[in-house]
């Protein structure tokens, strides 16, 4: 059977797991095309207006797979880590697709709920494997292989590779010829790793001599540690990754600037970015900007903002040691003498 996987939402994070699993079970995996104007337009047309850009894109990718695959995989990611959730829209995604996409394509709904225990999360995949007609032993073997591939992938991400460089087998890091500095790119995987949607920001940064660091490059322990400063546990796995990743980059002075990529109407980012911004203003004072993306975002305006940010960052690097006569730091107001 040909199983279509939409190249959207958490695809860049989980593709080794999903793809290996289905291939080991003897199915053929078809990916939707790379995000394009057509896919975006289709998504915008089918999805409810209030949804955010990534969810609209997912709709577009599902439409793209109609006719190319026998069934389309729609993951229902309820929780990917014990005691945590992802965005509610991920949980209701199969319902959104079922009710919005016309032509009623056959959907393969894969639950993943690790709310109680991480191991239990894979039960949804096991069940799906059995529904596809595989025996228990085959399912277990496929799952083991898939998880091994996924673990390998995740450790590569942590060591500083980007999904693109691994998945497309580009050689090593996409570091610019001479690195002037590093910029933390804080955003959900579906924005940061989708070059169409983020207007190729990584290459644009590289052209100016900056290397991008992603939240996925920060080890989980550091993220947990950084988030422990808040009195209440953050219950969004990706929210935690973005906030903890950003805070770790700031804390370890790994970056010269932070760029937050967010999609218009993103509920989680509204809170996470606010917390990150406030912590940065209070303690670290590293240049930071937020770029909001939606289906109307224009290339020119985007480039201007990016250029302005880098200019500002560089000027600051040049003039930052201008200490006022009364001996306080220009930014924090703290005494330097």
């Amino acid at each position, binding site marked *: 059977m040909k199983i279509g996987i939409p190249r959207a939402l958490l695809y860049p994070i989980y593709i080794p797991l999903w793809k290996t699993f289905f291939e080991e079970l003897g199915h053929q995996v078809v990916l939707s095309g790379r995000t394009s104007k057509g896919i975006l337009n289709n998504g915008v047309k089918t999805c*409810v207006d209030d949804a955010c850009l990534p969810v609209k894109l997912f709709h577009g990718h599902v439409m793209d797979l109609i006719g190319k695959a026998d069934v389309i995989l729609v993951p229902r990611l309820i929780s990917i880590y014990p005691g*945590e959730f992802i965005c509610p829209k991920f949980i209701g995604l199969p319902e959104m697709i079922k009710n919005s996409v016309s032509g009623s394509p056959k959907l393969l709904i894969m639950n993943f709920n690790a709310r109680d225990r991480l191991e239990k999360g894979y039960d949804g995949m096991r069940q799906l494997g059995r529904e596809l007609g595989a025996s228990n032993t085959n399912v277990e073997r496929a799952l083991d292989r898939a998880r091994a591939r996924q673990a390998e992938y995740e450790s590569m991400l942590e060591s500083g590779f980007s999904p693109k460089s691994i998945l497309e087998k580009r050689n090593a890091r996409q570091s610019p010829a001479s690195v002037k500095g590093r910029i933390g790119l804080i955003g959900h995987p579906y924005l940061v790793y989708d070059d169409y949607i983020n207007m190729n920001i990584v290459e644009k940064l590289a052209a100016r001599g900056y290397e991008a660091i992603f939240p996925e490059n920060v080890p989980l322990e550091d993220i947990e540690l950084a988030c422990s400063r808040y009195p*209440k546990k953050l219950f969004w796995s990706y929210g935690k990754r973005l906030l903890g990743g950003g805070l770790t980059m700031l804390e370890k002075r790994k970056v010269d600037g932070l760029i937050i990529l967010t999609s218009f109407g993103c*509920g989680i980012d*509204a809170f996470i970015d*606010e917390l990150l911004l406030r912590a940065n203003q209070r303690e670290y004072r590293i240049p930071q900007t937020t770029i909001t993306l939606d289906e109307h975002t224009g290339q020119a305006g985007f480039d201007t903002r990016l250029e302005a940010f880098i200019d500002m960052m560089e000027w600051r690097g040049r003039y930052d040691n201008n200490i006022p006569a009364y001996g306080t730091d220009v930014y924090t107001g703290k005494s330097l003498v």
Partner: protein
Amino acid sequence: MTITFPHMGRMYIPVKALFDDLGVKVVVPPPVSKETLEIGTRLAPEMACLPMKINLGNYIQSMEKGADTIVLTGSCGPCRFGYYGVVEKEILKDNGYDADVVILDAPGREPQVLLNRIRKISGNSSWLKIARAFLQASKVVEQVDEFIDILLKKRPRELNKGETDRVQSKFEKEVLICKGSGETLEFIEEYKEKAAQIPERPGVQPLHIGIVGEIYTLIEPYVNLNIENKLGHLGAEVHRGITVTDWVKTHLSLDMIYKRERKKKLKKAENYLSLCIGGHAWETIAETVHYADMGLDGIIQVLPFGCMPEIVAESIIPTISRDKGVPAMTLTVDELTGEAGYMTRLEAFVDLLSQKKGRVYERS
């Protein structure tokens, strides 16, 4: 310690009664107004949902009146409401407001934390006293909702135009003078009587419209631009999908009969959505199906812009509408919602419903 809390419809009546009973000083935030929203919009993140903006406005306005401790409830996701407290605390801190924020969360692994917090805000009253105060307050909640339900029934049927609204506004003005749950309950009883005696026009058969959606938006009249009253004036009897009573019974009480009923109701959503996706989206779908089965003339979903769970519900509702043949409309509100445009949509919806019913409605 002077306590304040965010507004949520008429929730202030039982909450005030509760703290009065406990002998704790409490400041009821001024009614939500344009100014409240302006304060909130200035301080909150731009993309935050509307309830948070109003909450922040409430706190600031209460602190100006002397409150120093903020009490709010929490949850553990995935809806954003669960993290309100933390973000609000940070915002207040950066803006120079030194308030103690007490979040009452569902007890996870450490129930002691919650108990300590309850003890703290109750001014170290004995547990017996606290339990009694909570019980009394939940009675107030129910009574207030019953009073509102009478008004909803009366509004499309009233003989003298505007009488129901007059009773309601007088009630809302005077209820704050009551001290303690005893007085409050008596006062509500008196007004329920008054409301029941509002004269009706004979033979009126109003349209029946169910409103469903995000709980805060449904309950707080300022946010939904008083949709209940507006529909009432257009000659429709409003059925509320979710009330404060529902919330209290689901989250704070041990009422098993209610819980069983709730489960039964949620089961109705089965064909469309069969699990909790956070917030009240599941309830929204269940209520929509329930209302369609009840034979209501129309259903309106109200949500604040960007509400994550309700967006999922929004994409399901058209299917229910098609399957069951019941007209449904979604209204999204935020700080920029204009009253005129909103009113036009309500009027158009009511017009269509009455045409569907094959008769011209009478404006009350």
